[in-house]
């Protein structure tokens, strides 16, 4: 079994117009910048993107949005140090936004990967984000029903990967990546280093290979924060 893919361009080749894509990361931490840039190069339109944020500056997710490739964002916090790209399009009515509380976003993605079509959470009860949603009472407290969230594709970033697709993550870059890996029809990970099967201690695997369809080695991945401090723009 060898899930290695040679080029990022090949990894994103299946993402066509109208695809729903989960992109890992919390801000720049754990964001698969190189896969996002390969997706920009490929150029599909009318994407729905699921991410915690909505891009920062003019690289990565912000660049994807700036290219006009994104029809809808599903996220919890579309603000950043430099949110101009998203903000302008949103205020001009040119991009749709579904705002989801951060913990609910995480749990909906987990549910999508775990075969749980719906669950109840106290989060958002009584607020405008719960409008139109089913409410139920359990032991005297009110909860909102939330639905699973799935995607056609997930693009994630990991640290080590083996040919079976087993992954580890670097520090807080873990965030949404292991969840999104489980909830997409096809998941591709960029990893800093590919190691041989067995080199990752089975107790230290964070994402077991069953969730992964392809891995691409990107030895020195860019950090969104560093790129933005340099004023980088993609492409």
């Amino acid at each position: 079994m060898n899930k290695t893919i040679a080029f990022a361009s090949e990894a994103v080749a299946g993402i066509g117009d109208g695809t729903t894509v989960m992109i890992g990361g919390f801000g720049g931490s754990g964001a698969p910048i190189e896969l996002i840039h390969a997706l920009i190069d490929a150029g599909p339109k009318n994407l729905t993107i699921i991410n915690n944020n909505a891009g920062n500056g003019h690289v990565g997710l912000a660049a994807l949005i700036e290219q006009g490739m994104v029809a809808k964002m599903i996220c919890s916090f579309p603000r950043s140090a430099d949110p101009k790209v998203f903000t302008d399009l949103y205020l001009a009515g040119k991009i749709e936004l579904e705002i989801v509380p951060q913990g609910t976003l995480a749990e909906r993605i987990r549910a999508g990967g775990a075969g749980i079509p719906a669950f109840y959470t106290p989060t958002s009860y009584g607020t405008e984000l719960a409008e139109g949603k089913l409410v139920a009472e359990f032991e005297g407290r009110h909860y909102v029903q939330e639905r699973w969230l799935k995607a056609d594709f997930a693009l994630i970033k990991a640290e080590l990967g083996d040919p079976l697709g087993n992954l580890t993550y670097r520090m807080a870059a873990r965030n949404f990546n292991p969840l999104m890996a489980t909830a997409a029809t096809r998941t591709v990970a960029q990893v800093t280093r590919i190691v041989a099967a067995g080199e990752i201690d089975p107790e230290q695997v964070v994402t077991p290979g069953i969730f992964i369809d392809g891995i691409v080695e990107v030895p020195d991945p860019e950090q969104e924060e560093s790129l933005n401090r340099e004023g980088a723009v993609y492409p």
Partner: protein
Amino acid sequence: MSAALDTLKLSSAQIAWRAAQDMEDGAYVNLGIGFPEMIAKFQPEGRDVVYHTENGVLGFGEAPAAGEEDWDLINAGKKAITLKPGAAFFHHADSFAMVRGGHLDLAVLGAYQVAENGDLANWSTGKGGVPAVGGAMDLVHGAKRVAVVTDHVTRKGEPKLLKRCALPLTGLGCVTRVYTSLAVIDVEDGRFVLRERLPQLSFEDLQSVTGAELKIHGDVADLAVPEL
């Protein structure tokens, strides 16, 4: 009929061998406790299959030699196992996320009864005693294919493939293929479709020990299995 069947019918090992031939290269597979576990022995060469066990291991291998067991490293049947390179451990919630979430390609289970609508009964004889379900009700949901390996009839010679199950159900409409001691049968659109039968056995004789109509769509191949 019964005595004749007993001489004709495949052994458990032979049923397991036949089921093993359908495992695809690269598949993620859960083999139920007991008889289905035997399928791993017959995995065709050159096919890479990753085995999942509900208690939280992916990529396990054969049993260790006697005396080499580590009792922290067991399968769902609580038998000692070994690891292949690239194995992973995880907790039970993650393990059943794999199961329910549609990440397994194949689950193979035993059965008391299978109905033509795909219903499966394999967890309770309905006779009282101590009920025990384990992971069976989870496994029947989520895997892309849910196969059953079973004798074609009970020890008393009664059909196990029926119009409707009489025993308590494990899951509704979940079985996609049945490998029996006499035939290979798919469940399609609520009907049993015969794919292979032992060449020594006539269709009529097979139908007579099957509790629901066997449909034929296209060719019925010979069920050919080596001596084991």
